Every structure is written in structure tokens, then in C-alpha cells.
């Protein structure tokens, strides 16, 4: 399947149950148990958060839980997207940065 998205899938399992989550107000059907950061990247999402210092956009950098650049807010708790598996009904927001505090 060729698309214009930055990432394309190769040799992935078939028949995995899909569940609905929302990211930044957009609803997506994604494979249950899949890596959240990878799944969002596969949809073309690149900006996972804004930094607290300057508000600059950031996305996944290390994919192994070390850099903390893929921080998102899941049901009210700040999490590393690259260390999170997708569960039904997750409500995910980009981690808030400078000027975005409520």
C-alpha cells in the first residue's frame, strides 16, 4: 500500500482486533496492543507535544523510553507514547507546552 505518509507498513500481522482511540480530538481505529507512538506515526501524526520552554513541537526521537520527547497526556496522566500499548477508548492529548497551561 503506497501512500504519501512518512511511514509505510511492511509485513504486519493480519486479523488483529482494532479499537477506537482519540488523539488531539481526532478519532482513530488502531490495533489493540500496538505501540502507541508507532501507531500515531503510521497515521501521519508527527507532533506529539509542545515543549514547556519554548512551545516547540516534538515527536518520537528514541522509541525506547529514554528521550521523553513523545510525551502525551493519556486520561490525565503524562506518559511516554513509545512505552504505551493501545487500549480501547484511550483519550490522548499532546503534552501541554508553553502557553498551553489551563
Amino acid at each position, binding site marked *: 500500500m503506497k501512500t504519501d*505518509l*512518512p*511511514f*509505510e*507498513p*511492511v*509485513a*504486519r*500481522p493480519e486479523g488483529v482486533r482494532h479499537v477506537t482511540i482519540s488523539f488531539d480530538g481526532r478519532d482513530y481505529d488502531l490495533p489493540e496492543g*500496538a*505501540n502507541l507512538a*508507532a*501507531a500515531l*506515526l*503510521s497515521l501521519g501524526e*508527527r*507532533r*506529539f507535544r509542545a*515543549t514547556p*520552554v*519554548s512551545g*516547540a*513541537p*516534538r*515527536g*518520537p*526521537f*528514541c*522509541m*525506547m*523510553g*529514554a*528521550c*521523553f*520527547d513523545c*510525551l502525551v497526556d493519556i486520561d490525565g*496522566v*503524562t506518559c511516554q507514547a513509545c*512505552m504505551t*500499548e493501545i487500549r480501547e477508548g484511550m483519550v490522548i492529548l499532546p503534552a501541554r507546552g508553553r502557553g498551553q497551561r489551563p
Partner: protein
Amino acid sequence: MTRCDLAIIGAGPAGLAAAAEAAGLGLSVVLLDEQPRPGGQIYRDVDRAGRLRGRILGADYLHGASLTGAVRAPGVTHIEQAKVWNLTVEGEVTYTRGEETAQISAKRLLLATGALERPMPLPGWTLPGVMTAGAGQILLKQSGLVARRAVLVGSGPLLYLVAVQMVRAGAPPLALVETPGGLGRALGALPQALRGWRTLMKGTGLLRELRRAGVRRYRRARDITIEGEGAATGLRFSAGGAQFIACDTVLLHHGVVPNVQISRALRLDHRWEAGQACFAPVLDAWGRSSAEAVFIAGDGAGIAGAKAAEYAGRVSAAEIARDLGRITQDERDRRSAGSRRALDAERAVRPFLDLAFPPAAEALAPADDTIVCRCEEVTGGDVRKTIRQGCLGPNQMKAFNRAGMGPCQGRYCGLTVTQILSQATGADPEATGYYRLRPPIKPVTLSEVAQLSEHQNPGADSKESRS
């Protein structure tokens, strides 16, 4: 609190091999790992991905499946998705799994937390779309995703491997942009490296595969800048003239370095490894650290690769079994002789690789406007200005400008800050030192910490609710 003979942190090659060996020698082993499935980063998700994508990832990756059985071995308790956030040199381990915090008391600890990518601060490296080459590989291994319009930038054999895997996945990188290497200087180390001839053969095989696939290689690239507004859109550099490549993804790599977060937090002795331009813990021949009950095996002990990690894990496990009185010294020596020979052969090739693929000079001395500390957005210029104001060391630096104070706790700026300090003051990196790291080594919520007082003072909660 759970008690055991040996707690191992990290289920990569070193941790898995050590767990199997130690349990085989009669030790009770708890193997803690942050990922849901064993393999570490090098064999990430090998049991699932190997079946689906083995052809793309190759035989070296599939070898990992021979190790993962350790998690089901009798005597081994595998605690997956465990966020280990505090340890003591006496062998106490505190971790959170889900929302539950728990503690383990082990007679011996083995740290097998592997490597991190060497920080590569280049202009634009914080833009979305810029990742480590290791991250690109993890996406392919675990999630079956390959970047479509990607450029690989830097130095080292991993770049060739990732490029080849992308070719096999049907999405060859747009280009391989290599920073200046040291093949000439490395030739002196070649005779010794021939003990690891298999590794060298693999390297030349990868390069052949890239040539056949027509992947464009730029050598001796300098003045590298990642461009983009809000996300990476291109790479500018000079290599035989000014170059620009439009792309969506930039994968950076110039070597890996030991992950010293735990060994530093435990205040173990470290030394500067000039050949690998990084700090490594000081260990004896069995992987024992400056704290008697704490051992370290694998890349966290000094970079030597996945096979070496496996052998080192077995060597440490044999000594731990002797230490705890399960086997005699003779049995230990007999049992570990094969692994030690194989370990020495793996290590023999390293000096050649370290010389042939040095870190990118411009990332070791980042420009004044390049971000050095990603978390706190501290630039090279900020660090130098702080030095001019009289800052002498990495820990003062934290207080002056917050470098290293963000959630990554210095993982991606610590070496850079030490090196800029060392360049400016003339003191060598060893004397310059490194950040003092303190627990929790991963961020925890207050409720995750508060559970500890409930464990230690049962009933404290109810008393409080009565008052």
C-alpha cells in the same frame, strides 16, 4: 518484599543469557524489563517480529529468539513492563508496574541496561521527523513500519545495517550521509580485529548490498543542518560541494554509548574510555562493579555488541553463582571458559570499529545556536556562556542553566556537556566528570511513591483516615 538470589535489570542479550545461566546453576532469579516482551532493543520483540519480518531483519536479529526462552525457565521470574526507578547497592530494587509499586530484595544485582545512542546535537535535531537510527530500526522490528523518504546521517556500522534493512523492506533510504571516518588510522588495529573476522565480513556484505541497491552515499559530509518549520523537510550539508536532500525523516547515528543511568545513580566508579569517547563503569573481569553485590554485563559495561553481551552475561552469572556458594571456583572457571574466549574475540574487533567510525566531530562540539539539552532547550552557546561565567563542572551547569534537569535526566546531553566543558577548560573528560544522577531514575507519580509507605507501615493509611 520479594526475596531472590539475583535481580537482573534488562531482558536484552546480557540479561537473558545471565538469567538462564544463573537459574541453571540453581539461583532464584527475578528478571525485570521495561518492555512487554523480552529481547532488549537489539532483539526487540524478536519472538513476534521474527516470524513476520525475519527476511528483512536478518539472521543476526533472529538469533535473539534463541535467548528469549530464559523468561520461561524454571527459577526465573520475568517481570515485564516494570519501570525500575530506584536501586541500592545492597540489592534492593523498587519498580512500578501498571500503577502498582513493589520492591525486591536480591542478594546480588546484575545491571544489563545496554546502550543509548550517542547524543548527536546538530542544527534541527529536535524537529519532529528526526529520530535516532536505532529508533528507525525499532519501528521496523516492533511495529513493521519503515520510513519512506528518509536520509541516514552519521557514522558507524549500524547505519549500513539499517539502510540494508530498509532496502529489503522495499523503502531504500534516499541517501546515506556519512561524517568523516578514520579508516586510515584504523588499519593499525586491523590485525587484532581479524579475530572478529565474521563481523568484518558482515560489514563488507552490507556495503555490497547497498551498492547493488543503488543507495547514494555521501562521504566526509560536514556542516550538516536539518531544515524544516515544525517538522523536518530536508537535510543540508557539504560533501564535494553544497548538497540539499528533501526528506520527511532524518535518522541520526554516530555510535552508541553505555547507559549509565543506574550505575551512576548507585554512585559506582566510572572511568572515561577515550577509545569509545564515553564513560563506562569500572569492573573486574567478571563484571563486578565497585560495589561488591552489583555486577554489570553487556553494552552498559562498555560497548562490545549483542554477542559479547550474551557471553558477558553468562560469565557474570557463573561468578555470581560462585559468590553465593552454589559452585566452586573451578566449576566457575570451567563453565565460563568458552564464553570468555568468545567474549574476548568479540571485543577484539572493537578498537578497529571505534577508529574506523569515530563520532561526528561537529556533534561533539555543537555550534552556539544548536540545542544541546533537548528537554530544557539549552544551546551550545548557553553552555559556553555559563563556562565563561566560571562554571567548572556538569553539576554546576545544571544549577546555572538547567542543562540535564529535564525528564530525560541527561541521557541525551550529559556527554555533550562534559565534552564542551572539557574543550573549554582543557581538563580531560575524566576530571571534568558527569552529572550526579539521583533516583527516581524514571519519572514516577506521587501515588506510585506513596504506595511504599503503605508497604512499610501497614495500617498507616487507616490510622490517617481515622484522625
